[in-house]
Structures are given as C-alpha cells and as structure tokens.
C-alpha cells in the first residue's frame, strides 16, 4: 500500500499516470463515438450489393485491421510479429526482430551477444523468457537463459513470432515467468521453389542464403536450406574489436499430410561457427556447433478435438579457452485438447525433458560442479476453458505441476477471464503464479577470485548454492483491445508482478580458508507498468504500427549482500531495463515496385549498464524490378555513428558501441 501511494505521489509517476489516464479516457471517448458510427455504417445496406460479378472484382477494398483470430480470443498480452513486419524492418537476426514487439527489451551487447527481457526483466542472460523455435525450447539450463548467438533460421521462412508478455507458464513450458517468444516457421508447402539471396554491408559483411522447396504429390512437401554469414565488429572505444564472428547453418523441414486427420512434421538444423567473447581484459573465441531434429504428429478429430505429440533431440557444443560445455537434450511433449459438451474446452498434457551435460573446465579459476550432470524437468498440466453467454465470456482455469532436478516440485496455477464486449472490443484479466527454475551456474559455479591475504592464506571464492531455490512470481495483468475504426486497432495492457526469491549474492563468509560469496535468493520486489500498441492503416498503401511501454521496477534485498556482478543486486535489477520505450514502424508502398519503410525506436537510460537514453532509426528501400528479383537498401541506427545499448559487465569499461550500418540485399526467387 505504501509503495502504491509513493508511486502515485512521486512527480514523474503521477505525470505518467495522468498521461495514461488521459489516453484511456481518450480511447474510451473515441470508442463510444466511433462504435456507433461504425455500427451504423456496417448495418446500413451494403453499397456494393447490386454490382455485377465483374464490377465486384474491380472494387478497391479496405482491409480491416484484424489481428489473427487467436489474438482476439487470447486472455493474455499477445503480440504477433508477421513475416511482412520482419521483412520490412530490415533486421538480419532474430533478436533484433523482437524489438518490434511492445514491452520487449532488446539490448545488443556486442556483435554476437544480446540482452533480452520482457516487462522489466532485461538481463544479459535473457532469464525467465521462454524462447521456442517451432516448439523446440532453446533455453539452456546452464544459466537459465538463451544463447542468442546460436539461435537462427532463414528470416524469410518465419511465418510469425508470437510474443506473450507476462507469465505464460501453463501450456508453454517451464521458465516462462516473464514471457514467451514463440518463433513459428512457414509450412514447407509455403516455401516451394528456389530462393537465393546475398547481402553485403559495412557491419553485416556478408550473408548468403539458399533454399529449395519441393514436393512429392500435394501431401508431402519439403524444403532444404543453407545459410552463412560473416559479421564485423561493433565499435570499441578501446579498439579491441574482438567480436567479429561467423556461422554456417543448414537444415530442412518436411510436412506430410498423411490424411485429412493426421499430419506429421519433421525438421532439423545443423550449425557451426565462431563466437568471440570478452571476460575482463581477455578476449577469447568460443567454437560453437550443434544440431537438432524434431518430429511432431498432429491428429485432428471430427468433433474438433486435437492430439499433439512432439519429440526432439538437441545437441549443443561450446568450447573455448576458458570453459566448455556439451549438452544433449531429449524432450517429449504431448497435449490433448477436447471439447467437453458445448461450453468447455479442456486441455491436458505433459512433458519430459532430460538434458545430460558436461561442463569442461579449462582453467583452475572457473568450474561448474558437478562437472557432469543430467538436468531434467517433468511437467503435467490441466486447463479448462469455460464459455458463457454465447461465447462472450471465457473463464480459463489451469495449473501446471513441474518437477526439476534443482528444486523439486513447483505448482503454477492461473485464472484468466476474457470478455468479448462486442465484435470490436474485448477485455481480459489474469492472475498467474510462475517460477523460474534454478540453473547449473546458480547451484554449482566455482569462481576462484584469487588470494586476498597471504598470511594466513585466504582465498576469495564465488560459489553456487545447492540450496538455491526457484525464483517465484505472482502476476496480475489485464488488457483491452478495440477495433476503433476498420483501420485502427488499439491494444492496451497493464500489469503488476510480485517477485520473490530473486537471485542475489550473499555476504562473504569464511568457509575453511576461503572467503566465499554464495548465490542466494534474497531479492524481492515488484514491477508495474503498461503498454499501449496501436495499429493503423491510414491508406491501402501505408501501414503504421507502434507502441509505448512503461515499467517501474521496485526491488529490495531481504538480506545484506554483495554487489559483484552485472546481475544479482537491487541496482542491477532496477537499472537494467528501460522505463520508457517507444517503437514505431511505418510501411509505405510507394508504387507497385517500390517500398519505403522506417523503424524508429526510443529507449530510456539504463543506469546500471551505463547506457544513456537513445533513439534509433532504420530505413529500408525495396525495389521489385521483376517478380523474381528484389533489391533492398537498408540503413540501420542512422541517428549516430554508434550508440550504447548494454554494459559489458565490467564497471571500469565503457559499453561497446553499436554502429551505424548499411547493407544491400539481392534476392532471387523462382516458383516451381
């Protein structure tokens, strides 16, 4: 309560509150004014009714700004980044694509490392955000996060990226306490033919892609692809330019439509490359490689129920001069969704994941114990979606029970409500409890920081904690969506999350001859904020989408601790995510052959990362001289020669500057 009052009383907050309240009132005013207008225009007689077939085919139509069906019916803060959004943003890697979504914080640390968070959880580990590529989790139990440098696909093959802000733990899988990023690639039937593209530029030196899609009859489609790139270093104030890197990747996807009820998908990738990093004064190159194979069987029954069974194997190897890790992950998931009478949609399912892994110590300074381990997560969930009053109200109750090798059992329940007020407006609200399971590092890392006293000999040690617990969150959230006019769609979401047991570092304690700093769970606090995301198509040839996101992070420590890292202290939690974010994407069809696109971003300062507020502007000019050819000219981060997005983790160093960049991309496609 006191926090709430303080929140309202503080001048900057009350200012923001007034703006937000004004925006809501304004939206409500437009809503009442324009819904009537909209209704009456929709209800009046159809002006084109009496045209002939031929005339109908010549009528220019307004495309209603409609979000995909699933968005309208989801009681969660979901945002969909479409293939068109990706293509026209000019982004060349997955992490940069995510910048398009409201409430998602992306900071490029150097050429191959990103910090990603959702709603105030930005960290260099991208912790508590579950990232899935075609149903395969790319989360690593080593540090409970994502290695972005090995997550890649042909960006042209992405059908859409669904971003769910807020706890989405029930159906999606473990460690989705702050959000889910679900990258879904196109079906093989949608990528038939040949595609070749080459890109050259000052930072993205070279990127070459080739793909072939074929079929054996209409029920068996496949594609194979290859991709490789060389990327230059970002801007280093100390001229250490260590971060130029390269990667090659190849893979396939096959979709077999066995009969009208059964579908089977098999897909896989392999990759290898160099990923340089820097720790303190020394730069080193990790050699990374891996591969994965996933099979998924979907069965659709006539009564509308579905059965879904998926299994995958994923192998990652990362070996460098300071450390190494090999990991094999085997995962099996199943889900059954059935209709229970007219009113209820019941889903239940389970997942088993084993991840045998080995940490390879390369220096006496750093180790993770035990060196070999098998991480596992077993989970089961049940969810009931109940529809009332002609499907206008939906109440969703669900719970997930999960067991992991680090902290045992966790229960994650959720209650969600959706109210479709009319065809143009819907409200939703939810309360969810979610956990982030501990990781190998939090339980078993050993860093020997050196001798701090010769007589008696005392060493400083940073140590993982076998008693480390799951990080817990309780999230309250709600949202409102409205189609204001057929051309303007607005989504407004608010949230308040309570966190407990967040990772911290304890005070040094003497254990034998070692002064030891243990990983602890002593930080708790809240994040509060909102996002407003309008989507407006003023003209057939002009589309605008954007968002404003605000988050206030308020943390406190329940025990005294040490501030020794880029994470794990009150200032780093509070000062590593931007309080304000503005994102605007404008897509302009100049003529049939030319496209002009702009992507603007504003991120407020990150004091804990020594990053000042910055603005970015990307421009893209696309030219289709013929159906098969496309030429794109892209300029990125045009406002300044370089800007900082995230700290290096070393307080004595300046961050690495993200450079102004330009590239040319030529694409050739031939349909079969």
């Amino acid at each position, binding site marked *: 309560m006191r926090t709430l009052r303080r929140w309202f009383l503080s001048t900057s907050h009350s200012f923001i509150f007034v703006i937000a309240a004004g925006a809501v009132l304004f939206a409500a005013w437009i809503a009442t004014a324009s819904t009537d207008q909209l209704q009456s225009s929709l209800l009046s007689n159809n002006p084109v*009714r009496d045209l002939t077939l031929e005339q*109908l085919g010549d*009528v220019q139509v*307004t495309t209603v700004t409609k979000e995909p069906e699933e968005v309208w019916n989801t009681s969660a803060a979901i945002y969909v980044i479409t293939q068109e959004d990706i293509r026209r943003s000019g982004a060349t890697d997955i992490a940069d694509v995510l910048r398009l979504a409201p409430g998602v914080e992306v900071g490029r640390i150097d050429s191959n490392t990103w910090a990603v968070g959702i709603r105030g959880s930005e960290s260099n580990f991208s912790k508590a955000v579950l990232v899935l590529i075609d149903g395969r989790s790319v989360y690593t139990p080593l540090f409970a996060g994502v290695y972005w440098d090995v997550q890649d696909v042909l960006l042209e093959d992405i059908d859409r990226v669904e971003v769910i802000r807020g706890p989405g733990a029930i159906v999606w899988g473990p460690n989705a306490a702050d959000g889910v990023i679900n990258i879904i690639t196109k079906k093989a039937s949608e990528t038939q033919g040949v595609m070749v593209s080459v890109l050259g530029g000052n930072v993205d030196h070279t990127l070459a892609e080739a793909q072939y899609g074929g079929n054996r009859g209409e029920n068996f489609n496949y594609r194979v692809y290859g991709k490789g790139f060389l990327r230059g270093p970002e801007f280093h104030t100390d001229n250490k330019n260590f971060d130029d890197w390269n990667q090659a990747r190849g893979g396939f996807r096959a979709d077999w439509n066995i009969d*009208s009820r059964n579908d089977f998908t098999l897909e896989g990738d392999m990759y290898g490359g160099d990923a340089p990093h820097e720790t303190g004064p020394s730069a080193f190159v990790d050699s990374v490689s891996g591969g994965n194979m996933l099979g998924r069987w979907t069965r659709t029954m006539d009564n509308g129920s579905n059965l879904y069974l998926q299994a995958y194997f994923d192998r990652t190897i990362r070996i460098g001069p300071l450390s190494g890790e090999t990991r094999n992950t085997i995962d099996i998931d199943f889900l059954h969704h059935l209709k229970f009478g007219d009113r209820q949609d019941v889903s239940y399912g389970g997942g088993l994941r084993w991840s045998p892994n080995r940490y390879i110590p390369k220096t006496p300074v750093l180790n993770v114990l035990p060196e070999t381990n098998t991480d596992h997560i077993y989970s089961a969930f049940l969810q009931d979606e109940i529809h009332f009053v002609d499907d206008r109200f939906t109440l969703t109750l669900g719970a997930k029970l999960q067991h992991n090798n680090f902290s045992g059992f966790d229960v994650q329940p959720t209650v969600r409500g959706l109210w479709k007020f009319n065809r143009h407006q819907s409200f939703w609200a939810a309360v969810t409890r979610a956990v982030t399971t501990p990781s190998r590092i939090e339980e078993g890392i050993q860093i020997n920081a050196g001798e701090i006293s010769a007589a008696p000999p005392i060493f400083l040690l940073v140590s993982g904690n076998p008693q480390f617990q799951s990080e817990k969150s309780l999230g309250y959230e709600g949202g409102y969506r409205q189609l204001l006019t057929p051309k303007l769609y607005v989504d407004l979401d608010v949230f308040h999350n309570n966190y407990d047991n967040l990772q911290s570092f304890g005070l040094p304690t003497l254990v034998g001859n070692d002064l030891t700093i243990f990983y602890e769970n002593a930080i708790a606090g809240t994040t509060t904020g909102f996002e407003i995301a309008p989507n407006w198509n003023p003209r057939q040839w002009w589309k605008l989408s954007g968002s404003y996101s605000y988050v206030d992070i308020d943390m406190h420590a329940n025990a005294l601790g040490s501030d020794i890292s880029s994470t794990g202290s009150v200032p780093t939690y509070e000062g590593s995510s931007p309080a304000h974010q503005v994102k605007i994407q404008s897509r302009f069809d100049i003529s049939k052959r030319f496209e002009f696109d702009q992507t603007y971003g504003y991120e407020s300062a990150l004091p804990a990362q020594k990053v000042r507020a910055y603005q970015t*502007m990307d421009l893209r000019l696309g030219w289709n001289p013929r159906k098969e050819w496309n030429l794109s000219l892209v300029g990125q981060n045009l*406002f300044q020669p370089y800007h900082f997005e995230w700290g290096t983790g070393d307080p004595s160093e300046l961050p690495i500057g993200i450079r102004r960049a330009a590239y040319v991309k030529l694409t050739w496609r031939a349909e079969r």
Partner: protein
Amino acid sequence: MNTTGGWLHSERKSLAARISRVRRFRNMIACFSSLLSLLLLIPVCSAQLTHPTEFQVESAYLYNFGKFVQWPPDRVQASDSLQICLLGKDPFGAILDSTVAGEKIDGRAITVRRLSTVDDSSSCGILFISSSEEARLNTVLAIAQRSGELTVSDIPHFAERGGTIGFVMQQGRIRFEVNRAAAVQSHLTLSSELLKVASKVINKPLRNGQP
C-alpha cells in the same frame, strides 16, 4: 624539403576538409531521415471510409453467386429458400444479413444461417467456410460436397485444396478462383459467366472425398 612540407600541409588540410564534409553529410543524413519521419508521422486525418470493406464485397459475392449456379433439382425442392450458411467463426456479422435482406433469386427468398458443425449443413445451398475451420477442411469439404453445396471460403488456396470457389485478394481487390472438378463432385452446374469472371479456373477433384 619545403615542397614536401607544403604538400604534406595541403594534403592534411584537404583531409580535414574531407572529414568535415563527411561529417556534415552524416549530420545531413541524420537530419533528413528524422525530418522525413516527422513528415510521414503527421496523421492523415481525413481517413474516410471511402472504400467498402472486404466483408461487404464478399457478402455481395455470396449473394451474387446464387444467380450463377444451378443446383440439382432434388436439392432445390428440399428447401423453399436459398440458404447461405456460415460455418465456424462469423466474419460478416450483420453485413451479410443486410445484404440479402428482402432479396430473391429465381423467386426463392434468401436466408442466412450460422452453423457450428458441418453436419447441420444438409439444407444449405451455399456454404461459406470460415478460416477457423481450416484445420478440418478436408472433412468439411467431403461432407459438404456429398450434400451438394456450393462451398466458398477465403482460406488460402481454397480452390486448390478442393473447394469450389475461393476468394483471393489481388492488388487490394477481392477476386475469386473456381475449381470445376469440385463443382462437378458437388453436382453443381456453374454458368459460363461465372467461369469467365473467375481470376483462375482449375480442375482438381477433392482427393477421394473420404473424411
């Protein structure tokens, strides 16, 4: 010595000038791009609803198709009115009802029905299949064809996948593709005018029709 020094000096000066030119150019780019953005972000306030929506046009098509299709005689007798049925999530709302209200084709009144399952479609003349039904499209098509309905949808590649008429969006206009083999399987006769206007006519029967 002197010449070399002079050359060096002038070279250095021209380098400095070049650098400042490059800087000015860079600043210009930054200024220009931000200015351009501002200009483009000025809302075009006169966004009026001059064009009809795709649903109005699709509704008009659905109504018009009835004039260019002949159903088998036993089907016509089965119901007094021509029923346009919507299967799955309804994208039209009141538009379709207002489009057909009071209209008649060959003396038959037109009624609109909304269905939750294809099993209730046996008296329908035209069946619009919503994109919400895409996952079970083959089953729906098999049942609809057996009972002689004109299947229409805006599901991508609908005609290609065994439906009779599929709406496609081309350059901001709604056109339609026709699958003649599917019409034959449904025992429907399509008028030549319909085929002439279609943006594409294909001949691809629904695979064996088993659900």
